[in-house]
């Protein structure tokens, strides 16, 4: 090849680039800092949310990006903090003897971010609304623990009559009756009484969950898209919205009506919605951003070496499903052999490289076991060991000595670089350790994968689960017989009975005993092949302090500071 044109080509590229911009102001943002009175120094924290959030309506949101966005903007009766669950808008609560009635007392003089007073009625309205079938909230079931909650959410506009669906003539009446019967009452302006269906030890945690955050009746009924606009949105959190441009940026400023505004240090929080994490990292490293999550996989080794990678715990388990209802994996010995023949340390160190923790159980670390007074995982321990000799023995017993005669099988995973690399590593390990040669991996779109998993049309599938609340139940109730998330299509009567006990007993000791025992049964049947517990990775400027990241994946900047 003639070299001259190449040089000329490069030169022209440079010329184009130089023509493009002659000044060199290094700026990543056009945000004009808004004036605020509280903090004197201008402290702007810019964070990449990683995706757009369409709505800030707490009842309708169902993704972590929105959860992180709503956290500084409003508050629940309780609030998740570094020190655990602390009173939020409620200054205190009382629980009756059998754990079914909670009485919350709101703080005095609570105000919405527009200055209007907030009362217990606001909570009655918000929770009724979140449960109303008209709202059609994805997470309405987080309120099913309240007496009459599921019933209200299940009032249907249409009824089945034979094969036909007809309009339910009593719809309005049924809705009204169910609303009245709901176990949420405002005793007076400051007191909220909540009656639960059954004792629910994690109900207090749920009051900090987005679906249960308060909304303002006048605002909600005032306009249909109140939660999509800066002008109409109001909350009761440490911050309020200053500016919001769809898919571009959301700018927050301190809420002057917040009850504890002296704790607020930042003058502004800016959320960007950059989807390409590589771009976000470039921006962060050139000073246009302070915090981002999930840096691109290729950059992790470098960031680790430069000591720039932050790791936060995550209440999530990454696992494989081996279809328990189909040969060859309907044989528990085969499932165990596969689980034991994986080098998990090598996977987290050489493949995923994000500080994940090898997993030998179902429930990820993160929730406390109040009986053992330590982390539930620590209390429960591991349920199996990696053991090649044992794995080979089990496989031989199942009729496949040295992997001979093992049928060809397909691993399915949703298209993603990490999932691909993990599947390749597993194929390699199972081949080397068990002599299984006929495995191949196929990628597919996420919803197609889910469809196959739910209908049981798979042999081996990649899967993962993140808890909705910090209690082992969020991992355990999914494996109930016929459960909507029981993608292993597994069923065990003893297990079902234990979970039922744990769900209804008021005795904490019996409850945790039942949960540990149930997990033991599931793991003894190896209904899933655990690989690792997730971690949340982030990159953060050294100037930032006081960011709270909880294991559920929510990042709270409310009381963060910039040095």
């Amino acid at each position, binding site marked *: 090849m003639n070299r001259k044109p190449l040089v000329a080509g490069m030169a022209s590229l440079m010329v184009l680039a130089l023509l493009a911009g002659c000044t060199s102001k290094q700026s990543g943002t056009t945000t004009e800092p808004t004036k605020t009175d509280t903090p004197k120094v201008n402290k702007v924290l810019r964070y990449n949310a990683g995706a757009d959030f369409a709505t800030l309506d707490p009842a309708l949101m169902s993704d972590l990006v929105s959860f992180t966005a709503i956290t500084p903007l409003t508050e629940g009766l309780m609030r998740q903090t570094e020190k655990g669950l602390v009173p939020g808008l409620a200054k205190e609560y009382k629980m009756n003897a059998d754990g079914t009635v909670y009485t919350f007392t709101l703080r005095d003089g609570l105000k919405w971010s527009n200055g209007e007073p907030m009362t217990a009625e606001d909570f009655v309205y918000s929770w009724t609304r979140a449960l109303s079938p008209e709202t059609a909230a994805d997470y309405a079931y987080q309120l099913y623990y309240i007496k009459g909650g599921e019933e209200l959410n299940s009032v249907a506009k249409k009824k089945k009559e034979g094969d036909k669906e007809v309009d339910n003539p009593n719809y309005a009446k049924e809705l009204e009756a169910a609303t009245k019967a709901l176990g949420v009452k405002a005793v007076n302006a400051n007191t909220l009484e909540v009656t639960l269906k059954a004792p629910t030890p994690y109900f207090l945690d749920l009051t900090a969950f987005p679906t249960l955050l308060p909304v303002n009746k006048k605002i909600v009924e005032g306009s249909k898209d109140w939660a999509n606009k800066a002008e109409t949105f109001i909350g009761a959190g440490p911050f309020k919205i200053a500016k919001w441009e769809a898919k571009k940026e959301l700018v927050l400023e301190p809420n002057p009506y917040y009850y504890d505004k002296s704790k607020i240090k930042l003058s502004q929080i800016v959320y960007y919605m950059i989807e390409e994490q590589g*771009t976000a990292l470039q921006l962060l490293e050139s000073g246009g951003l302070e915090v981002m999550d999930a840096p691109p996989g290729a950059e992790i080794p470098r960031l680790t070496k430069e000591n720039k990678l932050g790791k936060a715990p995550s209440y999530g388990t990454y696992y494989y499903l081996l279809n328990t209802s189909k040969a060859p994996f309907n044989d528990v010995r085969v499932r165990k052999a596969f689980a034991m023949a994986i080098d998990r340390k090598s996977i987290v160190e050489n493949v995923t490289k994000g500080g994940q923790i090898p997993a030998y159980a179902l429930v990820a670390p993160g929730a406390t076991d109040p009986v053992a007074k330590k982390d539930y995982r620590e209390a429960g321990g591991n349920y199996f060991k990696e053991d090649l000799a044992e794995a080979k023995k089990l496989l031989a017993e199942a009729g496949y000595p040295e992997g001979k005669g093992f049928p060809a099988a397909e691993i399915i995973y949703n298209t993603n670089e990490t999932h691909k690399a993990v599947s390749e590593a597993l194929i390699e390990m199972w081949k080397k350790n068990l002599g299984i040669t006929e495995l191949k991996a196929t990628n597919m779109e996420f919803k197609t994968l889910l469809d196959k998993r739910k209908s049981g049309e798979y042999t081996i599938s990649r899967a993962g689960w993140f808890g909705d609340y910090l209690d082992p139940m969020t991992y355990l109730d999914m494996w109930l017989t016929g459960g*909507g998330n029981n993608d292993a299509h597994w069923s065990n009567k003893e297990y079902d009975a234990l979970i039922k006990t744990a769900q209804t007993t008021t005795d904490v000791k019996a409850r945790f005993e039942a949960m540990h025992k149930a997990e033991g049964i599931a793991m003894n049947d190896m209904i899933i092949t655990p690989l690792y517990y997730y971690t949340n990775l982030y990159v953060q400027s050294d100037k930032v302090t006081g960011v709270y990241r909880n294991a559920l994946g929510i990042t709270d900047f409310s009381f963060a500071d910039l040095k």
Partner: protein
Amino acid sequence: MVRYLGRRLFSNLLTVWLIATLTFGIMHTIPGDPFTSEKTLPEAVLLNLKEKYHLNDPLPKQYITYLGNVARWDLGPSFAQKGRSVNEIINQGFPVSARVGGAAILVALLIGIPLGALAALFRDKWPDHFVTVLTTIGISQPGFIIATLLQYFVAVKLKLLPVALWSDQWKVPGDGWKFAVLPVIALSFFPLAYFARLVRSNMLEVLNQDYMRTARAKGLPRLTVIIKHGLRNALLSVITVLAPLAAGILTGSLVIERIFAIPGLGKEFTTSIFNRDYTVIMGVTVFYAVLIVTFNLAVDVLYTVVDPRIQIAD
């Protein structure tokens, strides 16, 4: 002319209807629906959602309602972007994408056509080689490589321009326009190379035609011959490809918009499919179809301007 336009308008409507129908059919056959998620929703919640978005109605009823709404250009609410309508999504994203895309096409035309002409005139000399290399890079390199390289060298290393993000304020003096420079360059690379190649090969063909020699022989200056007879003929090919190309570029590039974090329409095409966001899939597809047929019609009319030999007959 009027009858011709009327006929074309009718066939365009038919095309758009066909596309809408096909999309509707294919969309409902792919596995999963808008509410399929890792966490299976309780029965009651699912029913409420389906009732709210009228997914409980029989498909033919959904289809007819949908066509009626499209006719009134009411594209419905998005499933995934709760509280936003598809009209809002298009109204917000398209102007952004169209600005970047329009600028990119302009750059591609203004640079690509002269480059192609130059290459043809100096065939096998260094300008031709230079253009060949440039266009080979432009056509063979995927957009994300060019975009990433520009971002890294121009923005991160040289700090001449912002790394990413977007501003609608392009007025000078002001910094807003700077956000658009790199995306426009990156986006214009392919069409620029494409135009240059087209013009070059067509020019070469035209330059050898008898009428070119005749024109020179009757004493017309070389430049006049090249521009009036040569370039004009060569441009026809550019106009032919312009319509689909412009519709594609104006509606936004997924890659470029992702890399530079531009709040355009480009990514809606793919993310809506991943999310099974039915109304958005339908909305953006129909919108795209309308743009293409409109541009095609515009191009056919434009032919008659560039080449008087082409006439629209009734």
